[in-house]
């Protein structure tokens, strides 16, 4: 793993953690903590599944951080400034649809289209079969398309 791969992986992990935590600082803390834990376990390195291990660690850390998260901060962080882009109304609409999805469905769409993981890798991270994950992602996409069509027609 060189520096370029490391940097790309850092950014993707940050976006993933941000989608889960909706907080920049906490997301960065979770990403750095993920890399440190990855280094603590040398058996994870060089096995060809480093990305899967990193996302699994980040997911568990995000879950822990989300549990420790104060409830009063939730309303403030829901509003994401980066998602507010008037030049791309379709992108904003899609992001709004994504934010309206449940937590588990949003996580899968982020892992698939933001982090760029394959369905097999997502299935391995989530602990389900490839077939089940593929069906689940298709079902979520269908629901998003239907909602997107409705919003676009309005």
């Amino acid at each position, binding site marked *: 793993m060189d520096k370029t791969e490391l940097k790309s992986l850092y*950014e993707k992990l940050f976006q993933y953690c941000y989608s889960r935590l909706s907080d920049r600082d906490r997301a960065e803390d979770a990403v750095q903590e993920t890399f440190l834990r990855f280094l603590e376990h040398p058996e994870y390195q*060089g096995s060809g599944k480093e990305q899967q291990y990193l996302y699994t660690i980040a997911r568990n850390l995000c879950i822990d951080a989300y549990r420790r998260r104060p409830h009063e901060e939730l309303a403030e962080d829901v509003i994401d400034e980066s998602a507010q882009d008037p030049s791309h109304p379709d992108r904003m609409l*899609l992001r709004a649809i994504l934010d309206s999805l449940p937590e588990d469905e949003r996580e899968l769409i982020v892992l698939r*289209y933001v982090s760029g993981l394959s369905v097999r890798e997502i299935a391995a991270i989530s602990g389900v079969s490839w077939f089940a994950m593929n069906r689940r992602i298709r079902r979520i996409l269908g629901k998003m398309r239907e909602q997107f069509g409705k919003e676009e027609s309005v």
Partner: protein
Amino acid sequence: MSKQSRNMDDLLQELGKTFPTPDPKREQEFLDNYPLNEETPRLVPMQQAGRRRLVYGLPAAAMAILMLAGGIGVWRSTHSRIPAVPVETTTVTVIETTVPAESVLKTEPEPSYADPTEAVPDPTAGTDAPEAEHRTEPATTGTTTMQQIPARTETMPTNGAETLPEAVTETQDAATRTTTNTIPPDHTKKDDTAQSPTEREPVVPVENTETTAVQTAETAATEKTAASTVHTHATTTAAQIQTTAADEVPSQTRVPELTTDATWIWTSTTYDPWPWEFTEYTSIETTTTTITTEETEETTDSLSS
């Protein structure tokens, strides 16, 4: 809808742009401090691979060796050479030869009877005489009785029926002796019909009376019985009646009797076992010819008288 889906797919690929990027300062600081050890990641898989080799390779090799040893043992146990035990073989050849009896060889007759298939008895003809004769006939010796001969001669349209008893008594003894010599007693007890001389009478046509008489004489000579007297009677009387009997006795009256005789032969073949069949047939033929001679003699006597 397809445009919408395509637009949606494009938007999904650009979905990462809607998310914020990490703080560059913190990111750079972390990446600078992150220990990128180039050797460690390469050594780990090698160590793991070596560990895998030991973990999986040794048991696999041991199992392979065990299986190979077991296979060799099985092969040796199945292919071990057993010392050959000499086995004595004995070949027994049984040659079965059947020697016919002397009486059969001597008196093997020519098939003088008619083909059973040709003379099928008509059940509606009303000729129940053979059955009646069977009942009245003595079963043990096969001799011709006084009651049977007139019954036979009644059916014949000859004119010598009144002078019958004298000729009958003379030829009857010869017939009795001949029949007794040839027919085995056991067989005669089995089948009554085999001893009915009157049935077999029509086997020989009247025109061939002389020839039949000669045959009868020869048979009687071989059997060394009293048939020699029959021979002399037959040769003399047959020549006398050759012209008269052939004209007087119509062949039509004897046809049913022929059929009766044929039927009898058929039934005897059916009921009797094989060893007895041939002998029985011979005896029947002998008896038949004898009785025919008797009749001829009777007719001749009646004519001469």
